């Protein structure tokens, strides 16, 4: 009788240690892996293949030249206050990461000029679509000029690929 009473009165204690262990391990795991899970993509482009001794036998084709010119170079501001507070603090050498504010670019497709904003890119898309309809195999050459940043190239390359051109080349030399 006394044994049964003892069992009934016995407190069942749950050991929390393994759960805490596992929680910490999961926390560490997610902290380590989360930064790799950002979605990243890539856009294919080509460089002039016939540099040097190997000359292409193919007939020269009329290319669509797209010039990328800097309209306003913009100013460099320190990334941290600008990103968080929108506050512009002039960036100096050794200040680490920077943002470029007030940077403007213009695109020139064959002879027509376009703004570098969304409206300009929409017009470029319309123009390129017409050109693509006439000759889908036509090659496109991107010619970035001085002062251009990586952020200016991706939207135009994206538009060219979106229209359907697959032969996208970067000009061999850097334009002034």
């Amino acid at each position, binding site marked *: 009788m006394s044994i049964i009473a003892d069992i009934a009165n016995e407190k069942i204690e749950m050991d929390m240690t393994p759960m805490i262990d596992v929680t910490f391990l999961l926390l560490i795991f997610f902290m380590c*892996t989360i930064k*790799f899970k950002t*979605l*990243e993509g*890539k856009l294919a482009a080509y460089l002039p*293949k016939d540099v040097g001794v190997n000359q292409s036998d193919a007939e020269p084709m009329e290319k669509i030249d797209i010039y990328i010119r800097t309209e306003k170079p913009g100013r460099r501001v320190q990334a941290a206050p600008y990103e968080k507070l929108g506050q512009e603090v002039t960036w100096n050498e050794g200040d680490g990461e920077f943002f470029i504010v007030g940077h403007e670019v213009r695109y020139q497709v064959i002879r027509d000029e376009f703004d570098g904003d969304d409206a300009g890119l929409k017009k470029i898309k319309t123009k390129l679509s017409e050109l693509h309809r006439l000759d889908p195999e036509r090659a496109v050459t991107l010619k970035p000029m001085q002062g251009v*940043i*990586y*952020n200016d190239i991706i939207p135009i390359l*994206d538009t060219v690929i979106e229209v359907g051109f697959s032969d996208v080349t970067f000009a061999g030399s850097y334009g002034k």
Partner: protein
Amino acid sequence: MNLSKHHAEEMKMDMTPMIDVVFLLIIFFMLITDMTQQDLEVLTLPKAKMAVPDEPDPKEFRPVINIRQNGEMISKREVVFAPSIDGTKDDEKDLMASLLDTSKLMKKDHFNKEAGTGDMIPDDFLLIRADRFTPFHYIQRVMTACGNQDIKIWKVQLAAGTLVEDTATEN
């Protein structure tokens, strides 16, 4: 009486430390085997609608060059190019050596692929990753180096962030 009590007691093995160790080993191997992502520096990429999601095959060789805002170029976690302050004394020796090694490891194909004629040149893509504010002349510098007689890399991919959510809402 006492002896019989001892016999009735069951021997229980505590599995907790073993589970802990197993978890730690899983995490360890997951982190070290994901080598394809280790080549990617932390950079803020521009966004693109048409960007093809980057899902590399861990077994395949994938050459990557990262370019920071200040023009510093990193390949396989090593700085291969650091621009000088005034830009006049830039040393491209390490960059060229790195691209040469990359070129040697790439798959090769004929210059005129369809005809099967011409020299054998690299036929893999070089992934160029740059920060959105990186001056383009640094990327151009890599491209120029790719055209070197001994390197001859002509296929490149420019890294960009994907716009999956935005395109989903547009549709």
